[in-house]
């Protein structure tokens, strides 16, 4: 039998991390015009790994990706990435276009996870009903 429990847990955690990432992006968008505001982001792979343990492994493809730590904490503050680039003279580092792209990507990935979770539940129901 397929180990659906593990998949459920992974997808659930993935959706949680996506939701926190949305919060970080919404924060950046709200503070688009705040002088001195430094933009934040969440390293999805790193936070997910911290949440579900070493059962899932993901490669660090970007130099900004944080290496896996043993802390296991998944708070926004602990893993929030801060951009060091300034786009204006007021010290604000929010890149408006970049944030909108991240927002769209994050929403799509959240919806995709929800859809996969949904289809896994359908698979389970099909097994319970004996294929009827």
């Amino acid at each position, binding site marked *: 039998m397929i180990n659906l429990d593990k998949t459920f847990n992974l997808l659930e955690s993935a*959706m*949680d991390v*996506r*939701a*926190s990432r*949305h*919060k970080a*992006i*919404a*924060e950046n*968008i*709200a*503070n*688009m*015009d*705040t*002088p*001195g*505001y430094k933009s*934040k982001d969440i390293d999805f792979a790193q936070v997910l790994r911290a949440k579900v343990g070493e059962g899932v492994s993901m490669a660090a493809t970007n130099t900004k990706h944080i290496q896996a730590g043993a802390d296991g904490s998944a708070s926004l503050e602990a893993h929030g990435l801060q951009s060091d680039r300034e786009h204006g003279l007021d010290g604000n580092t929010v890149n*408006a276009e970049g*944030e*909108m792209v991240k*927002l*769209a990507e*994050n*929403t799509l990935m*959240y*919806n995709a996870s*929800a*859809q996969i*979770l*949904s289809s896994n*539940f359908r698979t389970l129901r099909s097994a319970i009903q004996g294929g009827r």
Partner: protein
Amino acid sequence: MDFFGSMDISASGLEAQRIRMNVIAGNLANAGATRTEKGGPYRRKDVVFESSSTEFSKALETASGKQQGSVKVVDIVEDNTPFRKVYDPGHPDADKEGYVSMPNVSVPNEMVNLISATRSYQANITAVNAAKSMAAKALEIGR
């Protein structure tokens, strides 16, 4: 899943941009006002945005259970740049040399700020809609 927190943050952005638009509208409406309650021509006003992640407000917001990372208008300040001098001897507020002090409002500047505020407002709306669609998708799980 905490989409209401994200929506609160986006709502704070919407509110801040709306106040900014109100102030800009006030500046444009008074671009030619040479008399005010305080005397003298109208002075251009500007908003001051602050992120609630600063040390003091962080403690305050945590204590009051409010969302961190939201934005708010902490002050509306007056622009202290000098007034524009326009030569118009027939004007009732002209000085001895015939010059009238006009408000330090630059209409093109205000229009640019207005567009910037509108775009930021729309970006916050997009973030709210994204949160809504994600929450709706989560409710569909198991259907």
